[in-house]
C-alpha cells in the first residue's frame, strides 16, 4: 500500500480504491474495475459538473439543481427548474453515497450511474442538449483538451468519457462523517435525547430507512396524495405495475438539514411537517406501503427526540468540503 501511494504521488496522482470507503458501509455496488477512480478524472468530472456547457444555451449545469452547499440537493424551489426557467415535476434529489445505489432518480428509471447524466442533459426542460453536441463543444476548448488529456492521455474525447468522468466526480461524494457515523465507529456517544430518538427511529422508520445508508432503495408509497397538477405516478411510470402506483424511491435521511424541501415534489419545507405527515396517516390510504399500515404513533416530546437523532445524520464536513465545490481555478484561468 505504501509503495502504491509513493508511486502514485511521484506520478502526480492518487488512485482511489473502493477499499477507501467507510469501514462500516457495505460493499459498493458500482463496478470500479470498469471505471477505475483517479484524481485527474475526478477533477475532469468536477469541471463538467459545474459547467453549463452541458446545456444547449450554456445556462444550466448539473450544479444548477445539485448545489454543494445543500448536499447536492435543490433547496430554493419545491420543483427543480431547468433551461428557459422550465419547471419540472420533481425536486432534484441529493447526491452522495452513489456507489451504493441500485438505481437512480425518484422512480428508479436509470439503472446505472454512468448513464444517469444523459437524462437531465437531454431533457427539453432541464438542459435540452445532446451528448454529441456536448463533445463537439468540449473538443473546441483548450482547457478541456488539457483536462481530458490529463485523465485520458493520447485518447480522443468521447461521449463515454464525459459520462465516466461525471460518474467519478459523483462517486467521490461520500458522506460518512456525521455524528451518527462517529458513534458507530466508537469515537463518540449520543446524548440521551439523541439516543432516545435513535430508538424511536429504529422502531418507526428503520424498516425503510435502513442503516448505514438510511435507505433500502426500494420504492414505496408513503401515503402522499397525488398532486393533480403534476400527475406523477412515480415508479408506475417505469414498471406499469399497479402495485407501484405513487411509489417513489426511499431517500437517504443523511444531511436533512441541508436538503429541504422534502419528498419527491418538495411539498414539505420542514422536518416537523414530514414527521407530522407520517403520524397523521390512518393506515388506510390507497397503495400505502405495508410498513406504514400499522401507523406511526409519536407523542410531541418523542417527535422532538426523533428530530434530535435525525440531526446527528448531518455531515457538515461533507457539505463544506472545498474539493467538491465550484472549481474557480478552472473556470477563471488566464487567457487561453
Amino acid at each position, binding site marked *: 500500500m505504501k509503495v502504491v501511494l509513493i508511486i502514485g504521488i511521484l506520478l502526480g496522482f492518487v488512485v482511489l480504491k473502493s477499499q477507501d470507503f467507510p469501514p462500516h458501509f457495505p460493499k459498493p455496488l458500482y*463496478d470500479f474495475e*470498469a*471505471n477505475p477512480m483517479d484524481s485527474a478524472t475526478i477533477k475532469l468530472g468536477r469541471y463538467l459538473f459545474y459547467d453549463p456547457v452541458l446545456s444547449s444555451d450554456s445556462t444550466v449545469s448539473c450544479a444548477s439543481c445539485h448545489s454543494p452547499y445543500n448536499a447536492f440537493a435543490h433547496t430554493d424551489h419545491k420543483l427543480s427548474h431547468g433551461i428557459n426557467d422550465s419547471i419540472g415535476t420533481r425536486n432534484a434529489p441529493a447526491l452522495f453515497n452513489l456507489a451504493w445505489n441500485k438505481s437512480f432518480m425518484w422512480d428508479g*428509471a*436509470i*439503472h*446505472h*450511474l*454512468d*448513464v444517469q447524466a*444523459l*437524462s437531465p*442533459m*437531454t*431533457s427539453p426542460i432541464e438542459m435540452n442538449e*445532446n*451528448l*454529441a453536441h456536448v*463533445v463537439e463543444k468540449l473538443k473546441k476548448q483548450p482547457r478541456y483538451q488539457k483536462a481530458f488529456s490529463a485523465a485520458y492521455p493520447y485518447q480522443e474525447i*468521447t*461521449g*463515454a*468519457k464525459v*459520462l*465516466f468522468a461525471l460518474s467519478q466526480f459523483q462517486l467521490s461524494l461520500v458522506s460518512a462523517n456525521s455524528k451518527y457515523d462517529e458513534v458507530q465507529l466508537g469515537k463518540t456517544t449520543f446524548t440521551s435525547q439523541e439516543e432516545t430518538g435513535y430508538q424511536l427511529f429504529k422502531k418507526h422508520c428503520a424498516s425503510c430507512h435502513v442503516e448505514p445508508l438510511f435507505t433500502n432503495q426500494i420504492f414505496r408509497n408513503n401515503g402522499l396524495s397525488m398532486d393533480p397538477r403534476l400527475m406523477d405516478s412515480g415508479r408506475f411510470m*417505469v414498471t*406499469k405495475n399497479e402495485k407501484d402506483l405513487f411509489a417513489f424511491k426511499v431517500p437517504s435521511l443523511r444531511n436533512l438539514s441541508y436538503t429541504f424541501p422534502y419528498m419527491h415534489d418538495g411539498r414539505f419545507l420542514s422536518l416537523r411537517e414530514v414527521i407530522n405527515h407520517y403520524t397523521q396517516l390512518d393506515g388506510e390510504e390507497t397503495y400505502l406501503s405495508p410498513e406504514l399500515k400499522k401507523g406511526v404513533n409519536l407523542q410531541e416530546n418523542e417527535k422532538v427526540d426523533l428530530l434530535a437523532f435525525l440531526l446527528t445524520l448531518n455531515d457538515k464536513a461533507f457539505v463544506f468540503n472545498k474539493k467538491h465545490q465550484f472549481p474557480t481555478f478552472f473556470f477563471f484561468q488566464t487567457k487561453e
Partner: protein
Amino acid sequence: MYRLLLFLIMSSSGLIFGQSDKIQLRFKWDDKTIELQKQYPTEQSENTVVFTKIQLYVSLRSPGGDPGVFYLVDLSEKESTQLPFERVFEKQILQLGVDSSLHQKGVFEGALDPINGMYWAWQSGYINLKLEGYFLDKENRKEFAYHIGGYKFPYATNSVLEINPDDQEIEFALNAVILGQNKTHIMSPGKEAYSFFQTFLESTEIH
C-alpha cells in the same frame, strides 16, 4: 521448395487458416435493397414508402465465445452494412441487439457510446433498432418511427442467429415488418416493442 511455395499460396488465400472477409447486411423492400430517401411502392398502388433512418446494433462471435465487438449498422454509412467475418470452419453467432448483461454494465466506448444517439436517456437502455421514414400518398405524408429496445424479461429485444462460414448475406424484409403494424410509432420498451422485434426477426433470411 515446391511444398513451401504451395503452403504460402494456400495460407495467403485463406484455405488453411480461414479467410478474413465480410458478410453483407441488406434491408429489403420486396425484392429491392433499400436506400435511404428513395421511394418504394407499397401494396396500396398509390402509396410509396421512404426510409430516412435504419440503424441496428449487431455483434458477431463464435458459439460459446466471449461477447463479440458490437457494430452499429447505419444505412446512412454504407460501409457499416458490411461486417468483418472470419470464415472459419464453424458456425458463428450473429447477435441482434444489446443483451441484458451488457446493459447492466453501463456505458461503453465505440459503437455503444451513447453519443451515437442509440441510448434512451429517460429510461436506461439501448435502442437496438431504429426504423424511421414515411408513407407518401399523393400529397399526404404519414411519418413512422420505430425505436425498438428493452432488455428486461419478458420483453428483451435481442436475439441470436447462426451464421455458416459460406453465408454471404443477411437480409431483413422490412415490408413484412412495417406493413403489419397498426401503430406508426413505438418509442419505448415493452410488449409492443418486443412484438415488433419478433416480427423483425421473422423477416430475416441468411444465405
